[in-house]
């Protein structure tokens, strides 16, 4: 067994050294992305609390125009998506691809750091512009026009070495299972991002179809960027930590290709019955429901893999986050299907349930998987172990409860809003009455974001300590159980 240092094995030793060298080569860019991402995440969740409070109590913090809901909400989502999401995803992609391909990052490290710095500066400008009232009013693309070419260039700086690592890799059987997704995300993000930005910023006079393109962009970015990175991380870390091989290579293959084929077809169903050609929203609705197939295949595969291995979920921080992230994947698929199908979508259209989909997929699924990845990756890069079991536990539970609350409350609120709006009995009600009726749900959303902010304080603090090299000096991993006996069961180490 390779974890036994008492029996020196030259091959194994060489293997370990090679892995350590790979980790060392990507250390700078990956830690840079994680740390900055964590700062944006902190900001995003705080803005989420403020935006939710503003929706209930518009007079909160006075009448300052910079702090109105219309500016806070886009700032909150943009910080979440571009500040945290894409940035953390790039870090995870870079590390996993380096490890999977067995390739060190050769050269260009300063370019990666520069691209990272530019990414952060650009987003800072973009979000400040949104707060100053210069928003483009295009959902998820609220940051001003000048932002997107810079972001694209920075992304490509990362995508290129990742794709090149893949190109040079020796690909044994089963190599593709997680690698597919990482490689796909490298190519899909530029495609989606260029298409949406060119269409929305450069083509004049789009009219109603512009709204449809924007809805497509949001769904495609979630399904073809955030979802692949999350699934790729889950496919990599679940066997890595449990020591149990992925149950079915065939299911993995089918799950990937069905996602690749269906992911780009959905979105326009947001405007079902609206002023778009009916077939566009119809195709979107069909794909939105069909996406339950890739979601189901991946969920089934993870279920078969982890069956009987749930004890390590309790112990390993990585597995705990990944496992719950992977649980949220089917949930996000279900929410998407509910929003998409005409049958239920007629009521959920234009309600809070669309926010539920964005949050469950970007936070509940993607971010939880990335947290798991970070808990695995960072000790290998910083050379010390996570400091505190309690910080990790709190991060986990406050996140789970917060996300769960937001999803359930937004879905219920969405259903109630939609049914009320469609009910002829309510047609003589003013719109404000509907807004007031949904207030309790928004209050719970504010509370949930506050819980998540609290959990992120701990995550950020913990990560900063680790990056500063102030973690635990030990050769034993930080596990969430058996913490009373630090040295126990080194062979059973799950992290």
């Amino acid at each position, binding site marked *: 067994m390779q974890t036994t240092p008492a029996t020196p094995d030259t091959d194994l030793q060489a293997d370990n050294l090679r892995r350590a060298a790979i980790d060392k080569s990507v250390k*700078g860019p990956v830690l840079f992305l994680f740390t900055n991402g964590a700062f944006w995440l902190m900001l995003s969740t705080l803005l989420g609390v403020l935006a939710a409070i503003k929706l209930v109590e518009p007079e909160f913090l006075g009448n300052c125009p910079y702090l109105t809901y219309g500016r806070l909400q886009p700032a909150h989502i943009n910080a979440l998506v571009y500040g945290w999401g894409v940035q953390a995803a790039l870090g995870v992609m870079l590390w996993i691809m380096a490890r999977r391909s067995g390739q060190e990052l050769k050269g260009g490290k300063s370019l990666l750091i520069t691209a990272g710095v530019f990414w952060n500066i650009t987003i800072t400008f973009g979000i400040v512009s949104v707060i100053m009232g210069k928003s483009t009013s295009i959902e998820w693309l609220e940051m001003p026009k000048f932002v997107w070419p810079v972001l694209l260039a920075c992304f490509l700086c990362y995508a290129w070495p990742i794709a090149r690592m893949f190109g040079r890799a020796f690909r044994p059987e089963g190599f593709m299972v997680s690698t597919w997704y990482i490689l796909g995300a490298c190519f899909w993000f530029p495609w989606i991002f260029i298409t949406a930005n060119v269409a929305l910023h450069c083509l004049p006079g789009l009219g109603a179809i512009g709204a449809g393109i924007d809805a497509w962009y949001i769904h495609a970015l979630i399904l073809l960027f955030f979802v692949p990175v999350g699934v790729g991380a889950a496919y990599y870390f679940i066997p890595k930590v449990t020591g149990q091989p*992925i*149950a079915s290579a065939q299911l993995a293959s089918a799950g990937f290709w069905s996602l690749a084929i269906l992911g780009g077809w959905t979105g326009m169903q947001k405007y079902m019955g609206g002023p778009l050609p*009916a077939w566009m929203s*119809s195709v979107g609705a069909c794909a939105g429901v*069909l996406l339950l197939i890739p979601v189901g295949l991946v969920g089934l595969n993870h279920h078969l893999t982890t069956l009987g291995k749930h004890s390590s979920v309790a112990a390993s921080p990585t597995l705990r986050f990944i496992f719950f992230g992977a649980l949220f994947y089917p949930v996000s698929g279900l929410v998407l299907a509910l929003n998409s199908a005409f049958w239920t979508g007629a009521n959920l259209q234009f309600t809070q349930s669309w926010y539920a989909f964005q949050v469950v997929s970007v936070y509940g699924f993607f971010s939880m998987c990335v947290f798991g990845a970070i808990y695995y990756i960072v000790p290998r890069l910083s050379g010390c172990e996570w400091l505190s079991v309690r910080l990790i536990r709190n991060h986990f539970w406050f996140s789970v409860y917060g996300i769960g609350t937001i999803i359930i409350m937004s879905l219920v609120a969405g259903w109630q809003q939609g049914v009320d709006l469609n009910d002829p009995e309510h047609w003589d009600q003013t719109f404000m009455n509907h807004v007031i009726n949904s207030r309790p749900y928004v209050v719970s959303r504010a509370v949930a974001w506050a819980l998540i902010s609290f959990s992120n304080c701990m995550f950020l603090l913990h990560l900063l300590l680790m990056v500063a090299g102030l973690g635990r000096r030990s*050769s034993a991993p930080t596990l969430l159980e058996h913490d009373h006996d630090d040295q126990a069961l080194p062979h059973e180490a799950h*992290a």
Partner: protein
Amino acid sequence: MSAPAHPDSTDLDRLHSAVKREKEDLAPESQPAPLWAMFLLMLVAIIAGGQLGPMTGGWSFNVSNPFATAGGGDPRPGGAGAGDALDPFALAMKKGASGYAVCGGCHQGNGGGLPGQFPPLAKSEFVLGGTERLIRIVQHGLTGPITVNGQGFNTPGGMMPFGAAMSSQDLANVLTFVRNSWGNEGSMITKEMVQKVRDEEKRASQWTAADLAPFAEKNVPGDIPAGPGATAAAAPAAK
């Protein structure tokens, strides 16, 4: 961003401990997938297909109503664009049929009424006679004794007025339906005709049969859209 060098950073064993305790990458297995899961996914595909079939607007770039077909309007009663698909008479009959639900409570679904209680509408001279009298009865209500098809009726309270509760369009649709069902054949009654009567007569009390006698053979003037509703107009006059 990088970790500062520490006094013990030469301790390679500890520094590499995370790497060393790692489990190796494993090739995936080929476990069979359970059959029930495949059936579940088929069910998903069927539901998804349901989003496509009738909702695509005939794959036309010009149709944004998901319920419409490329060839015509919304097939649902009262749906948007329905008027394009149906001629005015057919539309009035279709909408009138659903509006008749209100009348059917007394006059019955077959228009036969109830002997001794509610007068019939089928073959009734009040229905097939002058449109002016018919409109006035429904608009303002009717009370007192009345003879229909040779049978006498004196319903307590009479017939309630519907003018305040229904739009002139709805009223016109129902009357057109009544005049052209159960073997009845009569000219179409349009929205404009009902409106004309409404504007002329503002009474608050119900009519009696005697009050209405002057209007018995009077038709409200007005254009009838071309179609079966207009050609049927000749039929009662010929009788």
